[in-house]
Each structure stands twice: as structure tokens, then as C-alpha cells.
């Protein structure tokens, strides 16, 4: 995490906007990239990231660390990420409270964890391992999930609180994921947010979702909906300085549209600041 709180507004760096961010300065405070897209040996991706980093602060957001794997973390993965961290000196390094790899099989998806004491011990150990290797604290993101486990022993917010306290990591609060989970599992998103250990939150993700046949799906292919903006406004007064970022991974619109959404985030945060004062 940065040594001092960072409270900027950023976007995800996606291919249709590469040229925009290599041109005249765009009104963002940071860019977030998917770590794995740049954990390559060389070539254009690494060259691009160096160019971007020379212009903007960068956050590294991963999808393959598999923090919930019962068999531990992939050391080769961590070594590559460490090399990228050393080169880019990112604002944040984050990944998800999920798992994707077991017994040499990698599902390439953010698979759900049961919220048990055993799982907590495993995730704490894995986060500690990652942070030792990376030489810095990480942020862990609450996931969207489509199933719940009957054997959960603690609530998700309790799991996150204990994780941060024991491993010394921070939280990346994805508000769209809270909304999606609330709809899929039948709880109140505001209640979930009210229980969240707010002191651990360092970054916020905002995104859109789609309605499947039975469930909401975390597709990141829509503008941030009013329901998610409402939750953002609800939680902000409880938080300290946080970075806010809009995620869009599919049906990517012109950059101007995302910058307009980012202005909405700025306006809501300004209102929250006045309320908090």
C-alpha cells in the first residue's frame, strides 16, 4: 500500500484506450491494469506499461494468485509478479478472495470459498506468503459469487476483518460485487456495508452487471447502475481516504463515457466529504 493514503479516481487500462493514455494527459489520477497481462517476458505489453507508468500512477490488479488455494501459492507466479512490482512500483497490488488453482488444474475463474475457520487460516497464510515475497502489503477484493456454502462459520465481513487483522493486508471493496452477491444470496447490501470493517478499505471498484436467467452476473459490460452509485454514496462517509476506480471489461465504450462516470464518482465523493465534515 502507499505510505500515505491515496484518494484519487482512476480507470482500468483497456486495449481500446491505450492510444488515449499515451497521448495528452487524461483526467485520471491513476490507472489499474490486470497484472497477468503484463507478467510476460517482454515485447509490446511491457513496453506499453513502462510508457503508461511514466505518465500515470499504476495499480496492479491480479486474477490468478489464487489466494484461497488449499495447496498454497504458485511460487513461479509470485516471482513474476515481484519482478513486475519492482519495475512498476505500483500504488496497490491486489487480488481476490477466491481460488482458481488446485492439483495443477487452473480454472481461470474466481471460484468461491466457504467462510470457515479452516479457509481463513489458509487465506491468511497465503496472503502472508504473497506479501513476504512481494515485500509489501496487498489489498484483497470481496468477490461476486453464485453459490453459497452451507457450512459457513462466519459472515463474509467477519472473514474479511479477521483476514486484514491477521495478515496485515487491506481491502479492495468492490461495491458491484456486494450488490451482485446481495441479489444472488438474498441479503441487504446496505447491511453488509454497514458491517464492513471500513478501516481496512484502501480502494473501491465500481462496475456494472447483467441479469442472467436466475442470477446477477458480474459482467463489467454495463455502466455503473444507480443501485451501485447509491451504495457508493452510502459507504463513503464511513471510509477514510480511498482510491476509486471504474472497471469496464466488455462492451467497452469511448473513453469519454468512462470519464463522465468518473466525474459522477468525484461528485458523490465530494458530497460525502461535505456530509462527513
Amino acid at each position, binding site marked *: 500500500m502507499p505510505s500515505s493514503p491515496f484518494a484519487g479516481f482512476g480507470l482500468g487500462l483497456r486495449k481500446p484506450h491505450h492510444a488515449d493514455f499515451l497521448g495528452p494527459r487524461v483526467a485520471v489520477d491513476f490507472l489499474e491494469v490486470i497484472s497477468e497481462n503484463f507478467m510476460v517476458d517482454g*515485447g509490446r505489453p511491457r513496453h506499453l506499461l513502462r510508457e503508461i507508468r511514466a505518465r500515470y500512477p499504476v495499480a496492479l490488479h491480479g486474477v490468478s494468485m489464487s489466494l484461497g488455494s488449499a495447496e498454497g501459492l504458485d511460487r513461479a507466479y509470485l516471482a513474476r509478479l515481484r519482478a513486475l512490482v519492482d519495475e512498476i512500483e505500483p500504488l496497490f497490488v491486489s487480488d481476490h478472495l477466491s481460488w482458481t488453482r488446485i492439483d495443477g488444474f487452473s480454472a481461470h475463474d474466481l*471460484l468461491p470459498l466457504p467462510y470457515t475457520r479452516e479457509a481463513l487460516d489458509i487465506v491468511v497464510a497465503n496472503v502472508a506468503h504473497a506479501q513476504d515475497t512481494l515485500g509489501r502489503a496487498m489489498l484483497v477484493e470481496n468477490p461476486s459469487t453464485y453459490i453459497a456454502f452451507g457450512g459457513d462459520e462466519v459472515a463474509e465481513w467477519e472473514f474479511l476483518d479477521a483476514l486484514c487483522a491477521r495478515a496485515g493486508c487491506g481491502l479492495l471493496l468492490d461495491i458491484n460485487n456486494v450488490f451482485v452477491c446481495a441479489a444472488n444470496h438474498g441479503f441487504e447490501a446496505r447491511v453488509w456495508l454497514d458491517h464492513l470493517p471500513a478501516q481496512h478499505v484502501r480502494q473501491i471498484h465500481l462496475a456494472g452487471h447483467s441479469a442472467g436467467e436466475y442470477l446477477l452476473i458480474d459482467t463489467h459490460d454495463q455502466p455503473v447502475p444507480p443501485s451501485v452509485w447509491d451504495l457508493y454514496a452510502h459507504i463513503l462517509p464511513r471510509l477514510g481516504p480511498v482510491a476509486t476506480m471504474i472497471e469496464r471489461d466488455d462492451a467497452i465504450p469511448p473513453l469519454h463515457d468512462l470519464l463522465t462516470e468518473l466525474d459522477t464518482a468525484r461528485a458523490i465523493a465530494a458530497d460525502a466529504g461535505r456530509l462527513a465534515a
Partner: protein
Amino acid sequence: MSLLALQRDFGAWLRDGDGEDGSTAPGMRVYQNNYRVSLSACLEDAFAHTRAWIGEEAFARAVVEHICRVPPSSWTLDDYPRDFPDTLAFLYPDDIEVADLAWLELALGEVFVGPDAETLVRADAVNVDWDNAILHFIPTLDLRAVRSNAHALWSALDAERMPPEVELLGARHALLVWRRDMISRFRLVDEREEQALVLARSGLSFADLCAAAVAVAGEADGIALAGRWLGQWLADGLLTTDTGMADALPPIQTR
């Protein structure tokens, strides 16, 4: 159930479970769909020209076969396309251009993100002591024997032109794939140049390469042939600035 057992069961279900079974929870179907869609999208992205060549339906069947045969094992999806040409070779034993074309696409993608290296340019080549020089090649150089005109098919498909008829190459040839100036490139080479590249990459000096060329083509033609290869390799940007630095290689063990 332990977390390890749960994750093993979950992974096995993603690979082999029947998501169409009416008793399956909707959420489990979401995860299985995500799993299959991400792998399909990865292969479609990596093999766009192969897909255009064999057609969308045939490609989709090959993808299903591949996902069943080869579960992903690497942390990066970039590695998943690696075995797909073998699946296509298995599915299309009589259409050898299909696997050749897929390998070319795979290699172009892999060298695109391969390690960087400083290329030896012609202007600096005059300073190299070629009598004693060891040739050092860029790390993104890849080489594979091919039996079809897959290179011509790729070029036509890439330019959205009508592809030529499939041709079987009479003599042995290989496709050389590499990256220069951030762009992946390829060139068809004959068997003699392929063998020369294999020898040279093993740490042979240029003088020894000339001797090998002389052994194949005779005194006059052999020297000229080695000179042409060197000129072409320099023009292609295949040599690094380490070329000529004999001490950059580990000593050769002799007994």
C-alpha cells in the same frame, strides 16, 4: 469436508460435470459456463486465422475436444493455446496445413511477448571479428519443420484475401518465426538454412558454420552460402549485440 477436498471436487466438476443436468444449481452452471467460455475465447483469440480456415463450427468442435483433452494447468491463459495445434493434428490427420497454420499462429503470439534483446544492426556488424565470432540469436527465434504452404494461407487470411490452394511442400522446409521492432514476423526457409540455424544456435562459431556449409555445398559455394545466411540473418534482425563475444557463452566441455 476439508477445503482441499472441496476444491478437488469443485475442479473435477468444472472439468467433467454435466451442467445440463436439471438438478445442478444455477450458480454451479454459471461457474462451469465461465470456465468453458474463457478457454474458448482464449483459443478463438489465439487462432483467429485457423478458425477462419476450418470454419466456425469445425473450430468450435475442436475447441470442445481440446478442453476435454487438455485441462488448463498454467496460471496464465497465455499458455493454454500451446497444445491446440496437436489437437488439430489429431483431428485433421489428412489436412496437414491445419496444424501447420495453427502452429504458425501460436508461434507468432508467443514471440510477441517473448524476452527483449538488443539486435545487432548492419552498421555495427562491420566491427565484429567474424573469423572468431560466436553467433548469438535473439531469444524470440522459433523454428519448426512444416509440410504445407501454411505461411501463404496465413498471409492471405491476414490480408483478407482469397487463400491459395493448399500445397504440400516437396522438399523439407521450416518456418522461422521471430519478433523485431515489436512485430512478430516469419519466413519460410529451406532445409540447409534450417540446419544452419540449428547448428548456429547451438553455439557454433561463424568460422565453423562456414566449414559446415563448405562440407555441404563445396568450397566456393559453401562460403558464399554462409555469407548469404549471415546477411539475411542480419537483415532479419536475428542476431544480438552479443554476437562476436565468445566469452558470453559457457566454455565447451572437451575430453
